[in-house]
């Protein structure tokens, strides 16, 4: 018997097993990228009340459509809003804008869309017969875009956007979110 060979092979296999054992213990990095996470947003400099997109980054193929939700984040006593969204119309074309469920009440909200090529403006008013305002986090609208060309494009909320309470007084918006669309 070739003991030397056996020993060498055994040592190699043992080292391999230990190595695999150690390799299998990789610690994954934390990735808290939910655009509705207050803590994660705070790290990005977005503080409530804010307007954000979800998802805030997305990979699609050129020519495909993508739906992006617009959220009001941790807002208090909201009665109406005027939200301006900027996009590059050479990269994206707006297909549709659907009302979200945040303003839903016993009476449908006033929901008006204005598409001015590279800017879409959403007007929305809370119309409940009992309550006069809403608070918290919720989906205001869902925007569907079609990717026109490959490349990176940014969807952003214009700082002219405003939140109003039931007295038509402005609520300061502290954070304006973005969504990065990467089309291949």
């Amino acid at each position, binding site marked *: 018997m070739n*003991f030397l060979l*056996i*020993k060498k092979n*055994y*040592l190699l296999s043992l080292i391999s097993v*230990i190595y695999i*054992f*150690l390799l*299998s*213990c990789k*610690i*994954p990095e*934390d*990735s*808290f*990228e*939910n655009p*509705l*996470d*207050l*803590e*994660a947003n705070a790290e990005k400099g977005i503080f409530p009340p804010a307007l954000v997109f*979800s998802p805030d980054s997305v990979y699609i193929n050129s020519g495909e459509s993508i739906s992006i939700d617009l959220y009001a*984040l*941790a807002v208090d006593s909201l009665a109406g809003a005027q939200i301006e969204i900027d996009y590059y119309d050479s990269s994206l074309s707006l297909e549709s804008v659907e009302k979200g469920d945040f303003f839903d009440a016993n009476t449908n909200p006033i929901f008006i869309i204005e598409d001015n090529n590279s800017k879409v403006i959403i007007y929305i008013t809370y119309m409940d017969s009992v309550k006069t305002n809403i608070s*918290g*986090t919720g*989906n205001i609208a869902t925007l569907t875009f079609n990717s026109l060309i490959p490349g990176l494009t940014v969807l952003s909320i214009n700082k002219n956007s405003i939140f109003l309470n039931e007295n038509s007084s402005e609520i300061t918006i502290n954070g304006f979110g973005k969504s990065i669309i990467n089309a291949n």
Partner: protein
Amino acid sequence: MHRQALYIFLINISFVFAQINGKSIAILDFDNNGINKMESIALTNIFNDELTKTDVVSVIDRKIVKENLLEQDIDQTKCKNLGCISEVGASLNVQFIIDGFIQKNKNSFNLEINIYKVFDAMKPLIVTSLVNGEVVVRKKMKEPKLTAIKTKKINYKGTTDGFIDEIKVMAWELVGLIRPEEKVQQNKQIANVETVVNIDRYGTVLRSTLVPGLGQMYIGEKTWGWLWMGAETIVGALAISEFNSYKSALNNHNAYQNEYLLSKDPLTIDLLRIKAQESRKSMIKADEQMTSFLYALGGIWMANIIHALVVKPKNPTLVMNKPAFNLAYNDILKQPELRFSIKLD
């Protein structure tokens, strides 16, 4: 005709055995030629002991025979006539007398033994009567020739050990038994028992490399063997346990991460983020513990190999592998036997 002769022969043989078995026998020192008297007495003693072991005849202790004949000033080796046999038989109160003759010539050994019936030797030679106050010989009988009821011979060529074996076989055959083969094997083992086991150091290390503690066990260091094996098993089990904890924490972390990304409720998002962070902490802790245990495992493994390399074998011989005292049942003698061995090195 042949069959008849065979029957007669077998009847005679069984008759001789029947005559001897269960009777008392005294063995006289074998006469010698080519060996000295001490050797002759030693061989006689071996024959005597082996015949005793058969347990079918009552053999008189050689010491008693010696003392008795010394008292009567009888030379054992010269006791070849009727008168002497008769006298010895009467004084020892035995039914049979065995004498023998050993001859050695280079590697050739010859042994001839004769069995005499004492009663035959005690027949009167003359018949007397008292006539007018005088002893008158009425009849004078012819002195019968001293004839053995059985004679056995060995012609052996070889070593003294072989000749001794032959003597032992002869003792069993004399009473119509076959010497058990087991006994022969046992004797061979006893002859080999002093052989020192050549401890393979490389084999020891290799065994310990393959399985911690195995090399130590191989050389008889069982306590050390179990110690290394136990330590490696315990630390290994702890490492595996920590690995399982790590895997469990990893699965939880991945699940919480997925739920977190899909969630739209800020409170749930907060909760899932905290849970995911806790899982990650558990994962890191388990990983650190497991790494420590793996290092310990490697350390113990290396120490075990070094120990196997330097440790002295506790039991270098087969003799030493056995306890000093052995209580066993001897199949040959049909009785329990207590053995005692002493380490001579």
